């Protein structure tokens, strides 16, 4: 490390959303010419911190100071932070697929001559920038014709075109394969020598260990510690301990599990990405569920958890390649959602607003919407039965609303989630797949959701619970499968599991396991 002077200091940053403190008193210090990693579980506050830094949350909406290159700065939007030399590259790339590489690099920043875009100059500069990031494609190529790895490089070229001083990378390698990741990490390391510092958010701890110079660990909106990779002899285990170290006491209702026989089994499940046909999103995954059992599915974002769940639920994601589903010992065909519902499967989606609910509908109609035939004679819906059914759920799940006639949009996140759960409980499922069922829900409502899940298991239903929060899985499940890059890597009984070992299986293809 050539220099020791500080390029960025964020001091006592506190950011509150209505009802929650997303960041409290977080300070970080980034020295010029270093790669500074930020680690933490989902929801620990990493993205909030970066959004504060890049001006997505403008000055005034948080408390604390940001000192960049020796000056106190007050960014009011992304443009002003970019003008200062801070560029953020988001996990979802912000490139326009129909435009060429050149056009994307200079989008919003086009070189002009007498009011018209100077394409000759643009292309010349694009070639230089592409050379710097090691991309040798024709700059006229449309973005949609190059792979994700190269797109990531275009993003960096775009950042370089804005004379970036500090590059923020949010999960830069999440969607990349091994070779592309290595190339990207080499590039970031190379930029370091050319005066570009980086902040890198990543779940892939081995990468952090390889490239980062120092690391700040966030947990529950607080900066827990800052470590120097070399000096402190940091390894993956050390990072994981910092990330997960918190008590699990009294966050979960008590429960005694009564496990029945294995009744649901998936064998060698393989699914192709819907667009990129060379990519297998789920690979040869097998698992089992017993009656009355809550099975956890642990994996980082992009590991293929949701894809696995949705493809089982009536092939609603990707292209089915191979695999079998058995229920009660017999193979069942689940080719579409209707068949899935008829076979007693239910899927509570990760994205409540986009996939779970029709937000302009009211509560009672939402609750019965997945199995209208249950309250209908012929094709005619019986409004009285609909009311009675939804009213029963309102009472038993304690949905806080004056009446089931109210619109679901007006409910809080927790109550909306209860409506979604009610909707699927109404279909009388044998197996419920719950994808991040407590995302965006406050602690009190989470407790209630946990209680509902436990009650479902107590009725002898099988539950598969997908969650990014390890404490949640450890507190609630009987058994946990880990998934990494589309493949199931481990299966651990919860009473023998600990966060460190789970995190290890979630971040590397350690070993293959079958079934139980």
């Amino acid at each position: 490390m050539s220099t020791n002077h500080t390029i960025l200091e964020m001091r006592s940053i506190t950011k509150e959303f209505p009802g929650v403190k997303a960041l409290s008193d977080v300070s970080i210090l980034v020295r010029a010419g270093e790669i500074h990693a930020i680690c933490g579980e989902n929801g620990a506050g990493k993205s909030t911190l970066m959004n504060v830094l890049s001006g997505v949350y403008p000055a005034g909406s948080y408390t604390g100071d940001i000192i960049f290159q020796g000056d106190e700065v007050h960014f009011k939007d992304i443009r002003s932070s970019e003008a200062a030399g801070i560029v953020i590259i988001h996990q979802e790339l912000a490139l326009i697929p129909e435009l060429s590489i050149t056009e994307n690099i200079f989008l919003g920043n086009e070189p002009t001559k007498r009011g018209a875009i100077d394409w000759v100059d643009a292309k010349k500069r694009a070639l230089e920038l592409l050379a710097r990031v090691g991309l040798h494609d024709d700059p006229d190529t449309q973005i949609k014709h190059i792979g994700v790895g190269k797109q990531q490089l275009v993003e960096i070229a775009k950042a370089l075109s804005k004379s970036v001083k500090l590059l923020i990378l949010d999960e830069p390698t999440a969607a990349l394969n091994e070779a592309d990741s290595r190339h990207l990490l080499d590039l970031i390391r190379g930029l370091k020598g050319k005066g570009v510092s980086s902040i890198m958010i990543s779940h892939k701890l081995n990468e952090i260990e390889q490239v980062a110079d120092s690391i700040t660990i966030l947990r529950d909106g607080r900066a827990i510690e800052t470590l120097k990779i070399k000096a402190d002899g940091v390894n993956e285990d050390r990072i994981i301990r910092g990330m997960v170290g918190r008590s699990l006491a009294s966050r979960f209702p008590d429960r005694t599990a009564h496990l029945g026989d294995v009744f649901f089994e998936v064998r060698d499940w393989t699914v192709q990405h819907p667009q990129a046909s060379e990519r297998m999103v789920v690979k040869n995954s097998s698992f089992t569920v017993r009656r009355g059992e809550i099975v956890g599915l642990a994996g980082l974002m992009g590991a293929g958890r949701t894809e696995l769940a949705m493809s089982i639920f009536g092939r609603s994601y990707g292209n089915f390649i191979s695999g079998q589903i058995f229920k009660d010992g017999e193979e069942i065909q689940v080719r579409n959602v209707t068949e899935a519902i008829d076979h007693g499967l239910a899927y509570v989606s990760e994205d409540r607003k986009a996939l779970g609910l029709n937000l302009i509908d009211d509560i009672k109609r939402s609750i019965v919407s997945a199995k209208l035939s249950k309250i209908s004679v012929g094709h005619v819906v019986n409004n009285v039965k609909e009311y009675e059914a939804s009213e029963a759920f309102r009472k038993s799940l304690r949905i806080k609303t004056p009446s089931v006639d109210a619109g679901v949009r007006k409910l809080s996140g927790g109550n909306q989630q209860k409506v979604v759960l009610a909707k699927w409980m109404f279909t009388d499922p044998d197996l419920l797949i719950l994808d991040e069922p407590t995302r965006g829900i406050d602690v009190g409502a989470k407790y209630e959701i946990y209680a509902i899940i436990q009650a479902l298991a107590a009725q002898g239903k099988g539950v598969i619970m997908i969650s990014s929060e390890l404490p949640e899985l450890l507190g609630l499940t009987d058994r946990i499968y880990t998934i990494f890059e589309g493949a199931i890597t481990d299966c651990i009984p919860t009473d023998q599991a600990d966060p460190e070992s789970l995190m290890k299986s979630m971040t590397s293809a350690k070993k293959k396991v079958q079934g139980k």
Partner: protein
Amino acid sequence: MSEATGRVKAGLKDLKKIFGGGQSDVRQFGILFSLIAIIVLFQYLTHGLTLSSGNLINLVSQYSYILILAIGMVMVIIAGHIDLSVGSVAAFAGIVVATSMDSWHFPWPLAILFGLVVGALIGAFQGWWVAYVGVPAFIVTLAGMLIWRGGNQVIGNANTVPVPHGFTIIGAGYLPEIGPNTGYNNLTLLLGLLVAVAVVVKELRARRVQEGMGSTTAPVWVSVLKVVLLDVVVIYATMSFAGGRTGTSFPVSGIILGVLVLCYSFVMRNTIFGRHIYAVGGNRLAAELSGVKSRRVDFLVIMNMSILAALAGMIFVARSVASGPQDGLSWELDAIAAVFIGGAAVSGGIGTVTGSIVGGLVMAVLNNGLQLMGVGSDRVQIIKGLVLLLAVGVDVWNKSQGRPSITGFLMRGGKSEKKTPDRATGDELPPSGSPDPEVPRPLVPAP
């Protein structure tokens, strides 16, 4: 809140119940008042001509086919599509039916059936492109608009084709005169009586269902007032329709319209298929993940629209006694305007059959009233355009202010709705371990 304003608010709420305005139909409540206001305004401006027997009869027979189109259009729009081809489909079905009777000597009842089949085939064709190929309905029906208009002119050689007298009943016919001479049309009186009784029965049933669900029923005076008001309107209308010029009475096309409104309202409100249309329009992905076959829904609503367009075309042909190359020109625009004035959302998922009928009536009364006043068709178009813009504009503006409608605004005593923070849409999730002051209560009692 003082007791007085509380009572006023409760009164307003009850008043709203008179018109069946639930939480989701506040907009229709407003548009119904607009209709009444427009009728009163023109009644005054035309010195009583608007509500005269002759004009009411004329109004029904002149606009029934647009209202029939509005029924199909609101379903298409709720599902999240649009149909620009209805005018051309109507013209095409009209000329095919007229030719079938004129050249091929089909008896007229068979010709009507034939026309509906033609509509169904056209609809199946267009629906296939939309639902199974995935071409946006805007494009498919724009193409259809050209195809069927051209088809009409090819088949009719760009000429008019006359239709036989029997066929004209569906467009130009009235309820026949039977029974003793009462000075009124007896069948219309009977129909009016049936409707008046139906209003009472429906209200009684609605109350019984509400009580059965244990939900709050409106006070008895609200129901009584509602029934009385509606029946006064029904009786007034009955007397007007029955007491017109001899030989005229309630138009047959009005009866067809009435039956369709009843059937389609029922389908949209009470059947699984209706629910699926709303679900697909409200959130297609969520609907598919709930087991709704969204493609089939798309196919059926587009197909249904063309069947209704064919029916509207035949009624128009019957009324004008011939099918011509200019039939149905710009009908799609009238139908779409009716649907949006009637409270449907451009993004889909919201709208009702009755709302669209009321929206269509607003346009019809406006058109008719201005014509009665001798305003030229050029100015009528400008006014209609402004009314459409205003009606939807007010709605959009109200929504952006966080209130569902002006009437909704009044209901809350002039305060705009307090927006609840929308956490789940934020790009950062609140940390999970944040302390919560509220002690969570267990849902399942401990054993």
